[in-house]
């Protein structure tokens, strides 16, 4: 049973609550089938939260990349942002944590799919993509690309806890956490485990069509519920430029005004948009670096603007 359920519906009438000191010991507990679990279970917040705070003490900015919707480009945007941050300054250290346990894409998008994680005295060493860019993902721990991670929530939580507490991140300027779609275990865990270490904020990725925005609004609601600041919304796949006639079309039409309108309605900052570029999709499939390979493309230009704003947002208070 997860810790956020304070008092189960099926509990005896005067249940003291599973988190309380009297759990399992109070008079109404006798006869309750869960008495033993309550009496022996750990009390108070997860000790890992403190551990993670220690471990991430040298990480200046921790950013979650979220989206309620799948396939909007969270992983691509995370990879682009991390590369742009790393290219911007040679002494800026950047790392990516891929918290998508069931569908890890970062090893492929960052072009390190065949690498392995090494274990050292100080923990797992993340895989380095560039001199100042490293990555940790469950993808490195699977023996074959066909391997499915068929895990329920608690096991996924354990993995994320391990990624945060046992990876030797070293001293970092930016840690970007790429998440799976939804508002469930992985997201709650990341937010809870990082609660003491301090999350700088969340970047929300969306595409322009209403069916995606519908889920993204839920993600904004989630951030508000768990008290994570929203750094801004990035609209991905906004327009498509035909490589043949160079005219623009909307593949995912913004029938309700797109991300910009949603940001206005929900009062969150809008960071910018990225166009849909078939070349970008191909480079991602091959794990190549778009910033050095297509520096003059619309995507990279838009990206540079977003990254500049993002750095301002994060470092202003320093």
């Amino acid at each position, binding site marked *: 049973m997860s810790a956020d359920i304070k008092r189960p519906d099926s509990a005896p009438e005067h249940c003291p609550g599973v988190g309380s000191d009297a759990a399992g010991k109070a008079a109404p507990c006798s006869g309750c089938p869960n008495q033993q679990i309550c009496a022996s279970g750990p009390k108070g917040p997860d000790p890992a939260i403190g551990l993670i705070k220690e471990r991430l003490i040298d990480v200046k900015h921790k950013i979650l990349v979220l989206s309620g919707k799948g396939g909007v480009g969270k992983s691509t945007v995370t990879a682009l942002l991390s590369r742009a941050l790393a290219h911007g300054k040679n002494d800026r250290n950047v790392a990516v944590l891929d918290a998508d346990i069931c569908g890890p894409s970062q090893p492929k998008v960052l072009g390190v799919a065949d690498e392995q994680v090494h274990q050292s005295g100080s923990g797992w060493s993340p895989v380095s993509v560039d001199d100042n860019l490293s990555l940790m993902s469950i993808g490195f721990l699977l023996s074959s690309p066909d391997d499915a991670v068929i895990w*329920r929530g608690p096991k996924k939580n354990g993995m994320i806890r391990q990624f945060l507490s046992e990876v030797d991140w070293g001293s970092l300027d930016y840690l970007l956490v790429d998440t799976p*779609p939804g*508002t469930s*275990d992985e997201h709650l865990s990341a937010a809870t485990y990082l609660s003491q270490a301090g999350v700088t904020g969340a970047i929300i990725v969306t595409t322009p069509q209403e069916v995606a925005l519908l889920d993204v609004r839920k993600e904004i609601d989630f951030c508000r519920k768990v008290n994570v600041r929203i750094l801004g919304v990035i609209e991905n796949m906004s327009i498509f430029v*035909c490589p043949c006639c160079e005219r623009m079309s909307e593949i995912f*039409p913004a029938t309700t005004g797109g991300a910009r309108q949603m940001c206005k309605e929900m009062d969150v900052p809008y960071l910018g948009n990225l166009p849909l570029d078939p070349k970008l999709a191909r480079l991602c499939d091959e794990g190549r670096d778009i910033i050095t390979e297509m520096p003059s493309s619309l995507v990279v230009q838009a990206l540079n603007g977003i990254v500049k704003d993002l750095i301002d947002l994060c470092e202003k208070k320093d």
Partner: protein
Amino acid sequence: MLENVKHVILILSGKGGVGKSTVSTQLALTLKERGFKVGLLDIDLCGPSIPYLLQLEGKDVHQADSGWVPVYTDEDQKLAVMSIGFLLNDRNSAVVWRGPKKTAMVKQFLTDVLWGDLDYLIIDTPPGTSDEHITVMENLKTVKCDGAVIVTTPQAVAIEDVRKEITFCKKTGIPVLGIIENMSGFVCPHCSECTNIFSTGGGESLAQLANVTFLGVLPIDTKVGQLLGKACVTEYPDSPAAKGYSEIVEKIIERCQ
């Protein structure tokens, strides 16, 4: 509750945003057009899209003595729909639940909904291979599940996750009815040049690799995304997407028999 349901089909994909919900709705609508009685169950609890795609937002589920009455799209009651979207007060509010709670909800959807007599029950799932999927699989053990239809987009990043979903099906013993490749090409409305935005052929080669049936290709068509409750096969009968859906439905019916 599923005794009178003849065929149960799961729509799966390891990857998000490949069009599971769009494909589920269009398959349900196409089957309905063919005269079947169809049910559509949305078990994506954190991001239910079916109510919007069928323009049923704001509809309520009613509680009868023996269970929940699903929402019907029309008066003939040919298409029954159930989704957590109908149970939320506000379309913006998030369902922030961990696994055990999601499991209980999915179980309830499978056991407490009064589907009545159905020819096909289509189950739309969230991305991944976790709580919702394990629960559905466990609860369908007692019912005859015809199999899973796997949806993918052609690019390598999606294929990689979809391979995991096929492994999931194999490990859990769900037969794979076949793979659909969605968003295969985009025809520029200005110059009619077809661009393979997310490349092409990935679904078919995956089907060969994994030794499962390839059901067909669906192009990117902005019109399909905006149909909202109407069947592509009746609205745009001559479009490549409509042809794709007809062929796919044909193959699915054949494989279920």
